[in-house]
């Protein structure tokens, strides 16, 4: 598309402003992880790497990261199974109530997290006997299913049913068709959905606050507890800076996988 000079300048301007808007606060986080002053008043008073060494040896951080990784993994596995099952049903079949079920699969993300949180908390404390590690997973899986469902359903729609029909016409049964034809085609969507689901679960704080048991400290909960503590807040910045850096690669991969093939 041919754009005038003004149009190009405006668009570059928006892009530049947008990226700076996004990254200036993150730069601040990284800078503050080297800040000598614990109260983060600007401008910073001195440079130090001691927070990075303290973060590396802090047992609370390590336990929190492990718990978060475990929770996110389990939640993503559950979400992948449930999400792809549902996506297959919704995208390939027309049946009474399909629209309603589609709507149900949007609700966990459409409704505010605090509503999901207190609803689950109410049920867990009164009928499940309390909050545990598994209640966190249940809470996370509930909204992770939506993300996987959306990705896989979109892929099913784009793919069209022709390949599967051709496969069955040629004599393969449904299971073989799924194994050899469908699965390879939705694989990328599963990976992308899984990555997004993992990321959502890893950073989730609102629903987790209501579904985590007494001793369960996921990383966001640990951050929440230590966000304002004078001796711990700088460590929080270190953790955040590390997370940003670590996550760039999986995100890039996920984006490459979901790109439209032209």
């Amino acid at each position, binding site marked *: 598309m041919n754009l005038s000079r003004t149009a190009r300048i405006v668009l570059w301007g928006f892009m530049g402003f947008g990226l700076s808007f996004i990254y200036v606060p993150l730069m601040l986080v990284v800078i503050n992880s080297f800040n000598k002053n614990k*109260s983060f008043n600007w401008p910073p008073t001195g440079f130090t790497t001691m927070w990075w060494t303290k973060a590396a040896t802090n047992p609370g951080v390590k336990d929190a990261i492990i718990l978060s990784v475990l929770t996110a993994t389990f939640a993503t596995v559950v979400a992948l199974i449930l999400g792809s099952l549902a996506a297959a049903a919704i995208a390939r079949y027309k049946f009474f109530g399909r629209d309603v079920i589609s709507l149900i699969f949007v609700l966990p993300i459409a409704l505010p997290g605090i509503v999901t949180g207190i609803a689950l908390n109410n049920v867990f404390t009164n009928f499940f006997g309390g*909050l545990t590690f598994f209640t966190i997973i249940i809470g996370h899986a509930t909204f992770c299913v939506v993300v996987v469902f959306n990705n896989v359903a979109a892929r099913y729609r784009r793919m069209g049913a022709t390949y599967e029909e051709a496969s069955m016409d040629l004599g393969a049964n449904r299971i073989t068709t799924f194994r050899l034809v469908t699965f390879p085609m939705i694989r990328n969507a599963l990976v992308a959905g899984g990555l997004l689901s993992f990321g959502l679960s890893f950073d989730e704080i609102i629903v987790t606050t209501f579904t985590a048991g007494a*001793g369960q400290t996921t990383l966001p909960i640990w951050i929440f507890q230590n966000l*304002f503590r004078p*001796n711990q807040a700088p460590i929080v910045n270190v953790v955040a800076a590390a997370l940003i850096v670590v996550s760039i690669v999986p995100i890039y991969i996920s984006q490459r996988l979901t790109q439209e093939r032209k």
Partner: protein
Amino acid sequence: MKITRVRKSVIAIAAGALLLSGCSSSDSESAGGAYAGPIQDTPGTINVLAWPGYAEDGSTDPNVDWVTPFEKETGCTVNVKTYGTSDEAVQLMQSGGYDVVSASGDASLRLIFGGDLQPVNLDLIPNYADVFDNLKDRPWNTIDGANYGVPHGRGANVLQYTIDKVKPAPTSWSVVWEPNSPLKGKITAYDSAIYIADAALYLMSTKPELGIKDPYALDQTQFDAALALLKQQKPLVAEYWADYTKYVAAVQAGSVVAGTSWQVIANVLNGEKSTVGAVKPKEGATGWSDTWMISKNTKSIDCAYKWLNWIISPATNAQAAEYFGEAPANSKACALTASKTHCESYHAEETDYWSNVYYWKTPTEECLDGRTDVKCIPYAEWVKAWSSFRNS
């Protein structure tokens, strides 16, 4: 949802908690006697729900830790969770998972009558013998002769101010209430319905015609006056606080220069150099007297009892009271504090100081000051009014 049928007589007991009258609670959930003992050496894990500064395990400051020594000595593992308001404490205890809680007077009765706690067998806690007499068997932790916990200490909610920014040093709560306060926009207030009592306290001095005798016993007129005062204060407030670490950060950043506070917050701020002062103003103050209590459903009863005995032992009570900045409960702690004048400065052994400190307690419909001609506003209404006020 637990169905609790609380009969009027039980409310009367709670209300007239100062009088331990006849009928006992027949709520079957709190029946069942206390642990008979003896304390075994079974290892276990206890989840402790505590006010900040009450159960320090080295995570705030590596040198401040009386949890790890406990763990080493008894083999019990301790997980500490801190909370910011009594309301939070009640909710967390009710949702389960905690074995021991340090509850103020405005939470303790709600927990006892809600069936969340078990009575405590004081014979299994040798250190209880040394607790100050005037902290034993108090109405907020002893029902019908059944003790529900051991006292930790007591203190007042102080008026804290940043020394450089507030000159001269304030002696009255007027700096946080009066519309013409020079500190407008930089005040903080406690983010809990119980703060209505602080407004009532100020009215006790400034509007004696209202006849408020007890800031927790407010009839409709007095209650409305307190809410009006709070509305008047709102434009002065920068933030309402419930998380003490956020309070510390706000003072350090300069967005808050004065407001109601706990001594521990001032102590943390003054850690490296003296930046804030803390006083009990001339109008008096609200305060708290906290009790360590045991959950009904604890799975590590021996560790729970061991913790109670440990936390009120002279050495630990001295450490905790000094770190937080309050009067200890154990009379022998006074000799063990690092500062020899600690008990004196916190008035641990006297009674005059406490005469205008009004400990947190749960307001009930039966007026806590003994009036029978009017109905007082119960705490549930306080919470509703506070929520409405905060969102208006």
